């Protein structure tokens, strides 16, 4: 058996995805012009699928901070924090994130994926129990493979399903860690966090929440769903990423646990990888200042969510269950989703296509993510284009014809 034979099924599916002549998983941005526009295939294209929620990738102050850091401290750290030591900027960033949440401790990771992978797989071990939402991100599933703890899934966003699973554990010894996400990345829906926290309290379970898509977007100060739901103090571990709202790359975990820092010498995804480069740390510090100083960006983002979500809903598209910075558009099957995606790209609009097995319940989606600096004209144009394609492809019913002179 050849090394790649086991992937035969996936190879076939991947071939299908490329039948439109373009590979949605290998799109080349020839030039990125701004947070909302890039040149793709020689053409200026509207970007509505980049998780760039506040549009900070081109913020002049963030860019200047990064350039200044490169001049002062070089391009990279060339080693891990434990082997090569920390730069002052690493420590300052950790202090600033801890303060942002009002928590005592923070650890910064090189990517958000590593933050989830390392923290979750290390917090629980042999004899412990890890309970995860069925729609968890791949980084959470991968953490499950790396721990000796017993892993049990509960139904997506269903506190009673979690309750049943914690109840069944009875009085078995061992810690219980429940992993949730602030906003789920495919359909943009939020966890009923207050209810989940109540269940966790009832059974003495620890709560870890991943605010990757909700940092900046939710909460009066942009701390995420934990703040929005008023349960920040009940979330024992909050994980997040720098690669979305903060416009760079990296991850973090904050906690009040007095022994939290032991993770610095136990989490392998922290110990055995190079630390974030000075430019990234500097731009993230500046981006965090902006999140704190400009709450209007949050309002702009949600205004844009409303424009796109309500616009598409009014045309009859089937969408994710609620407003969110991610708007998932349901399409009947994989082929339609891929055809729709390609037609949008031809019309100069880039979104993500998400098809099984990467999606929950085998759904096929166009995944759109909003940016605070999208203009309403851009988004209204997008609704028009999608409506036209939807009608051509038979996803939407034809427009109701008005009879001239009719009453």
């Amino acid at each position, binding site marked *: 058996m050849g090394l790649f034979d086991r992937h035969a099924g996936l190879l076939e599916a991947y071939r299908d995805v490329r039948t439109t002549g373009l590979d949605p998983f290998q799109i080349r941005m020839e030039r990125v012009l701004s947070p909302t526009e890039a040149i793709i295939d020689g053409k200026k294209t509207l970007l509505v699928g980049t998780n760039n929620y506040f549009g900070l990738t081109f913020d002049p102050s963030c860019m200047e901070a990064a350039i200044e850091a490169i001049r002062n401290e070089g391009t990279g750290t060339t080693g891990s924090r434990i082997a090569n030591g920390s730069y002052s900027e690493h420590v300052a960033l950790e202090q600033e994130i801890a303060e942002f949440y009002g928590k005592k401790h923070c650890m910064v990771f090189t990517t958000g994926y590593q933050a989830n992978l390392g923290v979750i797989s290390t917090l629980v071990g042999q004899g412990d129990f890890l309970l995860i939402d069925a729609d968890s991100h791949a980084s959470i599933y991968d953490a*499950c493979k790396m721990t000796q703890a017993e*892993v*049990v*899934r509960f139904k997506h966003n269903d506190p*009673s399903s979690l309750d*049943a699973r914690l109840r*069944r554990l009875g009085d078995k010894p061992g810690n219980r860690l429940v992993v949730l996400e602030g906003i789920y990345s495919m359909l943009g829906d939020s966890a009923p966090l207050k209810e989940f926290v109540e269940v966790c309290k009832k059974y003495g379970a620890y709560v870890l929440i991943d605010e990757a898509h909700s940092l900046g977007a939710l909460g009066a100060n942009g701390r995420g769903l934990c703040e929005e739901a008023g349960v920040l103090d009940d979330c024992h571990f909050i994980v997040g990423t720098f690669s979305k709202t903060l416009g760079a790359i990296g991850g973090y975990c904050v906690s009040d646990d007095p022994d939290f820092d032991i993770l610095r010498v136990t989490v392998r995804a922290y110990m055995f990888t190079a630390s974030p480069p000075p430019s990234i740390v500097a731009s993230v510090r500046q981006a965090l200042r902006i999140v704190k100083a400009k709450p209007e960006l949050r309002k702009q983002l949600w205004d844009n969510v409303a424009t796109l979500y309500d616009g598409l809903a009014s045309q009859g598209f089937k969408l994710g269950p609620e407003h969110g910075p991610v708007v998932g558009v349901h399409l009947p099957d994989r082929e339609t989703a891929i055809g729709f995606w390609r037609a949008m790209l031809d019309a100069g609009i880039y979104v993500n296509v998400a098809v099984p097995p990467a999606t*929950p319940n*085998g759904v096929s989606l166009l995944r759109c993510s909003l940016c605070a600096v999208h203009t309403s004209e851009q988004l209204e144009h997008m609704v028009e284009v999608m409506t036209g394609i939807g009608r051509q492809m038979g996803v939407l019913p034809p427009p109701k014809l008005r009879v001239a002179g009719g009453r």
Partner: protein
Amino acid sequence: MIVENDGIADTITLPRAISRAAVVRDICLHLGPYQVGDKPITGKTVIAKDLTIDSLAIMDMVMELEDRFDVSIPMSVIAEIHTVDQLADTIQDLRARG
């Protein structure tokens, strides 16, 4: 949002002792939509191979069965289960221990 707890409702009405045949029957019912042609689903059916169900759908089906029979099957155990018989045995085993 509406939260329905079918798990608890089921367990209240489900007697503790339940025959293995009944468990197999229930599993086959859940697997029905993934049947290939007329080939019947039996205890010997290899779930991931003989049917059209993918790995994610298998895990979702297991979640339904967990609530039906009021047991939790850890993911590492699910990974070792291949046939309908093995799944039924696991459920029976966990029920006996619970």
